[in-house]
């Protein structure tokens, strides 16, 4: 075997590389050991409605508490009218929600939702 001839730059790069590789592998192993196999479990939270120039917007926050990614999530937000009419519905689609990730979006309404009662629910999603 030839003698290892390296200067300080090369030893530094090697040391940094070793730390990165070892920590990446230990992280993956840790994740692999601690991770369960729960299907996606989505929590939807609604923020305070705001008035914009042309419509009203309601902020929507979705968090995936499961261990798997949810794909193509459809969320419906419905506004119950006081007069007992059909509720007005708004919809939001999110392409991907990895495990433990949070995504934010908005649902818009023509009528003022600030006084009405808002309900949000996840209609469905696929496995990736």
């Amino acid at each position, binding site marked *: 075997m030839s003698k290892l001839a390296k200067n300080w*730059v090369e030893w530094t790069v090697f040391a940094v*590389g070793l730390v990165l590789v070892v920590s990446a592998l230990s992280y993956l192993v840790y994740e692999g050991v601690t991770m369960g196999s729960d299907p996606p479990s989505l929590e939807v939270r609604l923020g305070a409605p705001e008035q914009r120039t042309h419509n009203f917007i309601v902020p929507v926050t979705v968090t995936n508490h499961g261990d798997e*990614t949810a794909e193509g999530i459809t969320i419906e937000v419905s506004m119950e009218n006081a007069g007992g009419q059909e509720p007005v519905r708004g919809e939001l689609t999110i392409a991907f929600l990895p495990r433990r990730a949070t995504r934010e979006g908005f649902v818009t309404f023509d009528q003022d939702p600030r006084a009405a009662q808002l309900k949000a629910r996840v209609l469905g999603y696929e496995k990736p």
Partner: protein
Amino acid sequence: MPRRKSKKNGTCRSVSESFQEYGRGVAGGLMFSLPLLYTMEVWWAGFNAHPWRLAAYVLATFVLLLGYNRYAGLRHDAGMTEVAIDSVEELGLGFIIAALALFLLGRITTEMPVNEIAGQIVIEAMTVAIGVSVGTAQLGGDKEDEGIEGDGGSKGQSEIHFGGQTLLAFCGATLFAANVAPTEEIVMIAIEISWLRLIGLAFVSLLIGSLILHYSEFTGAREFVRTDNLNTVVVGSIITYAVALFAAALILWFFGRFDGVSLYTSLAQVIVLGVAATLGASAGRLLLQ
């Protein structure tokens, strides 16, 4: 990385020489991995893949780098310790470059959970690391060093190292096939293709492989490929194609393309991707030497 020897034989390379080498490595890493850094299926695979699968991917890349640095580096006299050290450096550079690129592209943000960030970096870093290795070895303009391995080179001509050549073919196949493997197009083609066309693709792959290796006078073909008679040509082409199919299957498995599809679709995907892998295993292998 596969290093050149210092101009002053046996002593340390100067600091500026080292920086030049890392510069080549970074350029190569970006060049070879750019298509994958800009492919959304790869980002998705980063956070969809199970941690075990990602860990297996890191280990597989490390083994690939060991093989590449051992057989394709300019210094065939490098010891295993040195090859291992070089491979770790390349992986490290891969992580840094991938993280920076993904950050600048806006694929990783501070609001993301750790697993999403880590998954994307790990999956992209592996291709970058292979690019760093190939770049350092291939992009150098310092030709005078080649005299050092002149003796070894002539010996290499007389006996073609079967294991080393197979490994290089595998490296080339992986490097080429990885660029198209994660895309939806492979699945789409595989689902829609008729069996006659599949056979056609397999036949074309075999033909391309044998043409490149044995008849097209590619750089290095004379040196590294045996074209004694029809028998060696046929056997050589079949081995190359087998290596290509194996590499294609491995990458597809990694990107989860076999999950929940029929055996026929899986096989069709392997053959469709096999065309790219064969190009890598034949032309790529000669260029990687």
